[in-house]
């Protein structure tokens, strides 16, 4: 799994939300994109997940360009994502929400599913087993039949991750996954994320909780005002002048 972000630029009206952003990473690994508010992290994220088409540049997965593809096709290339403000189906159960992630694997069409024809039935059962395992791993088992809308925020974030995992991704994109969590929940989440590369799943984290990612990521990219100002190991980035200025020193411009 290799992602190349090549000179990505995104322009809204007169404003460049991303400008000349280039870096790459390979899997399985944990990578983080950090930066102050308004740095353009979410914009980059939305380019990677197909919700925005970049004005310039390209993103390549294993050499194949994926920027400009719609979200469904990105998902088909085994890239899963979560959302900064969770997007779940409140009235469905936790388990059903996670099952939606396995939609592509179940396949079939309206008729084969309604009539419960052989192939659909087998695919549904297999997906169900996989989802039950994921529910166990993310410790959502006891909540599996509860309507997802009744879950607290920490569990909802886990639910979104579980749903993304159900699609058997190679790369998991987490958008501010630690936001709104208390320290115990953050620690649990970090521990869980750490296990993913061992299962062959790479993770890209967008965070503005810098402490959360420094322990986890092997590569950190720093954005500020839409541009990439540093990329490297957590230690390299921590001592980088430009990064320190971006976070601490507010230049009057």
């Amino acid at each position, binding site marked *: 799994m290799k992602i190349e972000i090549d000179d990505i630029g995104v322009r*809204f009206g007169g404003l460049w*939300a991303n400008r000349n952003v280039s870096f790459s990473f390979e899997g399985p690994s944990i990578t983080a994109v950090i930066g102050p*508010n308004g740095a353009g992290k*979410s*914009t980059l994220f*939305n380019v990677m997940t197909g919700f925005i088409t970049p004005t310039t540049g390209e993103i390549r997965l294993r050499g194949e360009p994926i920027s400009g593809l719609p979200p469904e096709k990105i998902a088909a290339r085994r890239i899963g994502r979560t*959302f*900064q*403000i969770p997007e779940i189906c409140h009235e469905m159960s936790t388990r059903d929400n996670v099952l939606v992630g396995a939609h592509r694997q179940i396949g079939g069409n309206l008729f084969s599913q309604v009539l419960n024809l052989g192939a659909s039935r087998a695919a549904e059962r297999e997906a169900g087993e996989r989802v039950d395992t994921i529910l166990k791993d993310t410790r959502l088992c006891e909540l599996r039949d509860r309507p997802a809308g009744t879950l607290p925020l920490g569990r909802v974030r886990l639910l979104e991750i579980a749903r993304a995992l159900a699609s058997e991704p190679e790369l998991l994109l987490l958008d501010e996954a630690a936001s709104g969590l208390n320290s115990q929940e953050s620690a649990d989440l970090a521990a869980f994320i750490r296990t993913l590369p061992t299962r062959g799943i790479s993770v890209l984290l967008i965070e503005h909780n810098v402490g959360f990612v420094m322990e986890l990521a092997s590569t950190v990219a720093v954005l500020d005002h839409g541009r990439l100002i540093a990329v490297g190991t957590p230690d390299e980035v921590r001592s980088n002048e430009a990064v320190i200025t971006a976070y601490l020193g507010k230049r009057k411009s």
Partner: protein
Amino acid sequence: MTSAEILQLVITGLTVGSIYALVGLGFNLIFNATDVINFAQGEFVVLGGILTAVAVGTAGLPLWLAAIMAIALVAALGALIDFAAISRVRRGSVMTLAMITLGLAVIVKTSLLLWVGPDPLYFDPFTPGPPLRIFGAVLQLQAIWVIGVGVLVMIALKFFFSHARIGREMLACAIDREAAQLMGINVGATVRLSFILSGALGALAGVLITPLTNATYDQGFTLALKGFAACALGGFGRASSAILGGFALGLIEAASVAVLPSGLKDSVALSILILALMIRPSGLLGGREERRHTQAM
């Protein structure tokens, strides 16, 4: 086509366009304040016409008094709708509110059917007298009233929104309700006011147009759709776009009668609506899209 025919067309188009613009403005007012589309907007217009007709015909009131009463009543109805239904629905979504207005539209329509029957109602034009002849085209005196009063109202509204404090507060609510609330603006009162104004605008349109087209109990929904089309043409959220859209729609509709059978007139306006939304969902002049939370960029 002769120039007289074209001029006639323009006159007709501007006349009905004025009505569509007024309906569209009514839509805008409520939409800006509540994100709700008031499906009963067309019924306000019909009520305005029918109430006035009944007051003049049955109660023998002078026209000006009947009209004022009708407009006041419908404005009060608007306030009642807000008080009774809209402001009370806490758990519902915007769609729920819209469906409530749909139910209200049905109530008004069937009430009118029960009350005055299916036949069109009528009252005399504001100023009696034969129509004017301008370069071969016929200009009904009432049409002058429709266009004139319509334009006056639009100018007044513009002024209201840019200079009157209440008007600016309404605009602030339209742009960002939470922020307006934080600045101390009474959002509830603003919503109530927008319903009142919307009712008054609709009823005024009804009063203006009835001498020309008569008022029938079931005209409401088609009118609402055309008012919506006016907003869609111009783009939701901006008063000026509803006005421009309304006049544009009126002109196109008038032009279509020249080439197509009159039974298709409404379909033309509706097709315009569909096309406009398909080509540019946020309106040809660009408007505010439905509010929904967006990811931080």
